[in-house]
């Protein structure tokens, strides 16, 4: 009989070892999958993981990791604060959209005048948009006790309809011959979130993500508010005795995650994406939830998890093109990776014990 026994303290060794084990297990089973599809497993896996980092054109793909990873990390950092405190914002996708709409709208309102203050103003507007959208579930939860998981999720669909409406209406490019989609902000110097160093992938969204990581780290490690977040998640009743105001915490956690998601949307729309269009959102808000958990809700872990996800996306697209692997196989492969990471994480907190039989 095998039983699980909780470790008195999470194992440091295993917290480093399990991700490695998970990746190895994914290589093995993913390899089997690729072989079953008639592809060479070793080549397939090398294409996904090696090619973007160290392949012939890594000079191009490495910066792309930042572009793909930054919004994931930025959103996941915000979400992780709430998740730690047991406050579930599932609607970051909607906040991301609203941030982009507010930010792009704020910029386009000034078109075509050029002014250095336009971009900072857009940043504020984008942050406000995301914050506002997250404050709806926060307010309803505080005031009526409404479940924030559902309200935030429902608001994703509402935001998507707003996005369609704006792309076809208010924000539609007047010089776009009637086609949907806004002006391209990349062609509007004052509103363009350009790369800070050309070709580095480093745009203001990446900078914001780094700042958010540091901010979250310091907050959780040093600040009273971080303590409130942690203690509320671990022992809500104790938190109350410790003088934590649960309502204020809800407003703070949802507000912060909305704000960061809104910023991610703004930096994306004004930089890499360039324009508001019906299909502007590509699921960063949902993927970020996975990133937050893969990173064990720890700021540094989230950075690593965000980059890992970005790598599988980029490598996956290369594998599709070079090897003819279907997109679905890449999705299954990503799913496997997540499963193994989640499953093996058990060894960080528990150990196996053999022998004595017990009722479990």
């Amino acid at each position, binding site marked *: 009989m095998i039983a699980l026994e909780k470790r008195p303290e999470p194992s440091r060794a295993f917290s480093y070892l399990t991700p490695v084990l998970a990746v190895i297990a994914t290589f093995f089973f993913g390899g089997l999958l690729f072989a079953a599809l008639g592809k060479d497993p070793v080549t397939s896996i090398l294409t996904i993981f090696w090619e973007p980092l160290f392949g012939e054109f890594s000079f191009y793909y490495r910066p792309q990791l930042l572009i793909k990873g930054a919004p994931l990390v930025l959103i996941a950092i915000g979400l992780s604060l709430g998740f730690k405190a047991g406050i579930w914002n599932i609607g970051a996708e909607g906040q991301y959209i609203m941030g982009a709409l507010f930010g792009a709208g704020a910029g386009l309102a000034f078109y075509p005048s050029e002014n250095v203050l336009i971009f900072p103003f857009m940043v504020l507007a984008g942050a406000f948009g995301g914050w506002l959208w997250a404050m709806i579930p926060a307010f309803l939860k505080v005031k009526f006790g409404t479940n924030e998981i559902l309200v935030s999720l*429902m608001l994703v669909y509402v935001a998507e309809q707003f996005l369609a409406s704006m792309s076809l209406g208010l924000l539609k490019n007047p010089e776009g011959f009637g086609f949907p989609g806004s002006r391209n902000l990349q062609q509007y110097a004052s509103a363009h979130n350009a790369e800070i160093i050309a070709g580095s992938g480093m745009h203001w969204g990446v900078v914001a993500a780094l700042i958010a990581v540091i901010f979250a780290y310091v907050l959780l490690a040093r600040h009273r508010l971080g303590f409130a977040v942690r203690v509320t998640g671990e022992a809500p009743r104790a938190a109350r005795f410790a003088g934590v105001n649960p309502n204020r915490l809800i407003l703070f956690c949802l507000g912060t995650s909305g704000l960061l998601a809104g910023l991610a949307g703004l930096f994306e729309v004004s930089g890499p994406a360039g324009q508001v269009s019906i299909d502007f959102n590509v699921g960063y808000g949902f993927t970020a939830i996975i990133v937050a958990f893969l990173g064990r809700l720890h700021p540094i872990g989230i950075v690593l998890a965000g980059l890992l996800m970005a790598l599988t996306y980029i490598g996956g697209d290369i594998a599709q093109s070079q090897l003819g692997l279907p997109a679905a196989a890449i999705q299954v492969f990503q799913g496997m990776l997540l*499963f193994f990471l989640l499953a093996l994480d058990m060894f960080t907190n528990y150990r196996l014990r053999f022998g004595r039989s017990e009722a479990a």
Partner: protein
Amino acid sequence: MDLSVINPILLFAALMSAATPILLAATGELVVERAGVLNLGVEGMMILGAICGFAIAVETGSPIIGFVAAAAGGAVLSLLFAFLTQITLANQVASGLALTLFGLGLSALLGQGYVGIKPPRLPDINFGFLAEIPVIGPVVFSHDPILYFGIGLVAAVWATLKYTRVGLVLRAVGENHDAAHALGYKVVRIRTLAIMFGGACAGMGGAYISLIRVPQWTEGMTAGVGWIALALVVFASWKPWRVLLGAYLFGGITQLQLNLQGAGVAIPVEYLAMSPYLITIVVLVILSADKSAAPGSLGRTFHASH
């Protein structure tokens, strides 16, 4: 604008059919959540059910066997979730999301050979003269067997939860797993069975889309229905009959907005399209007075510590 073209009887009959996939999936998820487990992978299990049901129905020529296969497919996929959350004690939210990703990919792989095929049709049940009764006939006696199965399932789940020992044990596990464990109930086993039940229901819901509502196979064809089903469970505050009500309300609003468009009512379409979600939020606020509803151990990891 001509509102008289909207036939409320046909509208109601149509919304019953439109609501069935969400109804099936949400009823399954309700049982899972009453056992204290939050499985966000409904969308993934639905889409896998959609392709399993479609493929088997095409191969065997029998839609009913297709539905059985869909239930099996959903249940097998949910076992993966059960393993992650019950055996390796992984976080339920993340596991559920990963399950959706995996299910979407796997279904697309399995479905590669089934694009552009017409599946065998499941005929409506012939109620004879009953279907001729005005109003009641078209609404009550003009549907396919799975739709009635869905309603029956709600009744069965309600009765089981309320009156049977199985239901009592399930609720006990969901309310307080430590206490249930202390009483000698096999928490992990009960939850695993509940998760599989949820998977089977979601799979059938998916197959209802690919075999009856649409009917065809295309990648990603469930288009987010699984998320609606999740919302519905909370909307219903974990009560089976309210799931039925909610599913009809949700299906009804969508039907109504399409009907209003057809009647030429000049309301901006995008705002009509977002109305089901907004109304759900409003209802959530109204219902949130009922705070006792959520299962006590929902989403929490259980480990039998000694």
